């Protein structure tokens, strides 16, 4: 272990952690909506992100489209992709035990992962755009512009989803259906359609994530395995369905990863991240922000 690192290393680790945290928050907004609010379990969420990343990758690498323009394609595509998967697999067993949903969506994740492996091979794919070299220097700290854009995207997406849930009719319908489906039906809300909408939106945010990540990240069939677990960790830390909590949870895990990487050798920082998760689940299952309920 390496505790005597310099202030510069530490401040860089913190800055990178915040960037990474923004990214983690961005990819977790969808699961906050799907699992946190709607209580739909989707263990294939990480693979949805993989699909979003591949789509963005091909649009940029083969279609020569600016990564930030691909949003116009990735977001609607992932919306309908999510709706399709939900219709075909999850919605028929929505009332079955939790475990069946876990198993089914694990099956979906295996299918997506291995389809990607067959179609695109196991190779790591990334794009080279002019944005990759744009860096911002603040004292000793270097921040890459695409990462900063992703962080902003994360903040804006969080606010947008929050605003949507709070103020629009569809948003209120989503919250009502999640809290009490029977009462919501009585109020004239089309509950199945609301579930579909929420799931589609949760999936669409991963299209956005794919487009914002591809300038500085990579894609690979298994990219969703770790990032999917991160999403679950962030949602738990955020307090299940709390959007602000999700953002804070993302930052906590981002910092844990980068500061951990500065302290622990090799990939042991991952173990540090998982430990934080387990400790939280055991001792503070209500998340980082909310007060303990009785």
């Amino acid at each position, binding site marked *: 272990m390496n505790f005597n690192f310099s202030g510069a290393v530490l401040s860089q680790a913190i800055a990178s952690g915040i960037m990474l945290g923004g990214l983690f928050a961005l990819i977790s907004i969808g699961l906050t909506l799907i*699992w946190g609010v709607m209580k739909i*379990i989707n263990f294939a969420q990480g693979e949805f992100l993989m699909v979003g990343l591949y789509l963005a990758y091909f649009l940029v690498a083969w279609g020569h489209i600016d990564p930030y323009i691909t949003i116009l394609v990735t977001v609607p595509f992932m919306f309908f992709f999510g709706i399709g998967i939900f219709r075909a*697999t999850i919605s*028929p*067993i929505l009332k*079955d035990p*939790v*475990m*069946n949903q*876990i*198993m*089914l969506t*694990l*099956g*979906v*994740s*295996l*299918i997506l*992962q*291995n*389809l990607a*492996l*067959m179609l695109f*091979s*196991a190779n790591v794919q990334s794009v080279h755009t002019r944005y990759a070299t744009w860096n911002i220097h603040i004292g000793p700290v270097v921040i890459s512009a695409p990462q900063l854009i992703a962080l902003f995207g994360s903040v804006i997406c969080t606010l947008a989803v929050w605003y949507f849930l709070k103020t629009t009719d569809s948003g209120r319908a989503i919250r009502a259906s999640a809290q009490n489906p029977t009462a919501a039906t009585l109020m004239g809300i089309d509950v199945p359609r609301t579930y579909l909408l929420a799931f589609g939106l949760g999936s669409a945010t991963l299209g956005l994530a794919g487009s914002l990540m591809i300038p500085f990240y990579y894609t690979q*069939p298994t990219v969703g*395995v*770790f990032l999917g*677990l991160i999403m*679950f*960790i962030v949602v*738990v830390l955020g307090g299940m369905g709390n959007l602000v909590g999700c953002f804070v949870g993302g930052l906590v895990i981002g910092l844990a990863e980068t500061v951990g990487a500065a302290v622990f*050798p*090799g*990939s*042991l920082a*991952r*173990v540090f991240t*998982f*430990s934080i*998760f*387990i400790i939280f*689940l*055991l*001792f503070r*299952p209500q998340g980082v922000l909310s007060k303990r309920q009785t």
Partner: protein
Amino acid sequence: MSLKMPYIRILVVGALICLLPLVLDTFYMHIAVLVLIWAFLACAWNIIGGYAGQHSLGNGLYMGIGAYTVAYLVNRFALTPWVGLLVAIALSAAAAAFIGWIVFRYALKGAYFALVTIALTEAAVYVVSNIPALGGAGGMQMEYRGNSLAYMQFAGQSGYFYMGVLMVVFILLLTQWYKSKRFFYQLIAVRENEDAAEALGVDTVKAKIKANVMSGVLCAVGGVFYAQYFLYVGPRSVFGEVVSVQILIYAIVGGLGTTWGPVVGAVLLVPLSEIARGQLGNSLPGSQLLLSGVVMVLTMLFMPFGIIGAVARLRQRWQHRSATPLVDSQGGEAS
């Protein structure tokens, strides 16, 4: 039906299976050994997942502990794997007891329990990948020391095959025997309704920890056998989420919480995915796991109680129509 019948059935099937080496060639013998390994592991998972209803997605942790313990002790100290087996049992029991104690004391359930178990087995991947003595990310190769039971190594596959048959017969007999015992009734009570179980004097936390230990130790035994057969252990081949899912998929497809379910699942799926790998492995990598995914989705959609569950339900409906008692007096489950 006589009480002895289920035991006799297990022994007879076991004996018949022993004739297979007479007709199978090397490729199919290899598949047969894999069927036995995964059937054994799935049976082991079935105790915590099927009977106790705690769906661990991290039993690869215990399989990995078994495999790595034996590989390390054999490589480093040239010990016989049988000593490794004993150490593996002790280590996995300790790990399963400790994890069970923490997780069940804090009453983690459902998705949370599943997530913690994934996190633990994934953490194990990163831990062993960073320990040079355990071969790091590349894993450990084991040396072939000769055809001998003392080394738990055999020249052809039939040695492994007969050992696998013994193990599966053992775990089936064990499950069948436990089925009429207080402990399994308590596990089922925990699975069905924890509050009611507590109110009827079942120490639910203790029962779950015991089930976790039993399941974990047996998975470790399966891991030891896996290491001895492949003479190789790697972080992602015995630890991690994918391995853990593979352990449980056969139990789910075959029928959760039934004696034969995990075996039926493994017998049907392992050859299918191995043949897929053999035929398409080079041209279409991943076809094997893709198939697992499809089977899992279809099972959950159309047969959530697995093959045995579906058959039992069909039979029940049939008997219902002919107005005979619904369930035989030996106890409801299809056995």
